[in-house]
């Protein structure tokens, strides 16, 4: 990562520089969130090329209209990862063949530590965050976890989840609401704030 002068800047400051067409600022943000965004897109889409397209579009969208980011609505991380999620889900809904029923896979992923390399290469905060989110998901009742993961990573609507799981639509709505409430409670203690400056080496 070049541009060590960006290391001291917070995410919001980098977005302001991106609005001024500062390519180094966008690169710094990519250094902070490109991996998380790409991992999310790969998880949803499975196909490498589609995932690359989605992440590229997300960062180009920020480049084209950084003013759309509203700090009052959330952090830069939430903004970028939400946009990645929206776009990846849009793609997966168009490409039916990408969608898979893989509840058992989700469970296994939560049990494993799939990326020991990350401990070396990634910034500590990102690794800790991953561990916290996975622990919170593991603590959910299985039915709630299943509903959340099918919606979030599978791109399924509530009605589709109900069909897949074989329960009424109302039950799925209740499970998702309860699951998200518990996730919120579990993660609230972490005191999430805008990410502090760091870059990959």
């Amino acid at each position, binding site marked *: 990562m070049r541009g060590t002068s960006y290391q001291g800047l917070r995410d919001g400051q980098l977005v302001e520089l991106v609005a001024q067409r500062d390519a180094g600022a966008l690169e710094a943000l990519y250094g902070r969130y490109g991996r998380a965004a790409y991992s999310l897109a790969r998880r949803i889409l499975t196909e490498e090329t589609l995932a690359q397209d989605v992440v590229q579009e997300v960062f180009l969208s920020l480049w084209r209209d950084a003013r759309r980011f509203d700090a009052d609505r959330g952090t830069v991380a939430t903004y970028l990862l939400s946009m990645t999620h929206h776009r990846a889900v849009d793609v997966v809904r168009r490409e039916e063949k990408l969608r898979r029923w893989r509840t058992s896979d989700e469970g296994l992923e939560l049990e494993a530590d799939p990326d020991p390399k990350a401990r070396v290469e990634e910034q500590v905060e990102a690794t800790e965050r991953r561990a916290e989110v996975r622990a919170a998901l593991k603590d959910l009742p299985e039915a709630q976890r299943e509903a959340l*993961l099918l919606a979030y990573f599978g791109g399924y609507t509530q009605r589709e989840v109900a069909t897949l799981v074989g329960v009424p639509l109302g039950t799925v709505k209740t499970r998702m609401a309860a699951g998200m409430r518990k996730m919120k409670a579990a993660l609230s203690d972490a005191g999430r704030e805008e990410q502090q400056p760091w870059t990959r080496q």
Partner: protein
Amino acid sequence: MDTPMSHSEFEELAAGYVLGALEPDDEHDFQRHLGGCATCEANVRELEAVAGELAYAAPPVDPPDTLWAGIRREIQPEAAPRGATQRPAGPARGGRRGPRLLPGLAAAAAILMVAVLSVWNLSLRDENAAIRDRVAALERATQLANDPNASLVTMDEVPGPEGAQATVIASSRQDRGVLLIESLPPLARDRVYELWGVPQGDIAQAQKALVFVPLRRQGVQALEFEVPIQPGTVFAITDEPGPDGSEKPTSQPLLVGAPPSA
């Protein structure tokens, strides 16, 4: 279309909303409710942060080097010279706007979009009742696109939301049309978008055609409307107070389009 729902039912929809998992009708109802409910809006913001955290449950994968290289290639022509930007102390400054589609290309894109929607329409036909309105609108768009009296109106930003696309297929013979929208940004609380038919472009004579809120993650939305359409009628979209919009425009148009003959 609007099913009466209790507040607790709306609260329950918030989770599905931030996960992008609501059915179109539920999403429409929830977004309309959000416009007037500070409690639900605050809840949505908190849950959006939680949904953002879910991304970290994905198995980490290093992006290929070609990914950043591709981004850099795209932004390089527009990048400011190194050292030319100012370290932030105040609000962000705006960037240049992206290129607009040439009118002809935009029209071709809109026609292609209708063709794609027709195929999509077929795939949706057998699904549940919640999407019947959308299917009907898509069918209407397809019918109108084949009507020799119909006009294809591409709406341009003035300057409007970056990346927003809106196209009207309107029939003066039938005084009705279909609005196709994509990537309209979410609105502030208590606000809705409103489509107007504007005779001869005279905003004082604007006639209400449609009140709507953009659905998230639904791709292209097709919405039917009825409004008197004469030669020279211009279409405009404004941001109005919700939930029912205004009888006359109260803000400057965000998107405007005139038929080729206007």
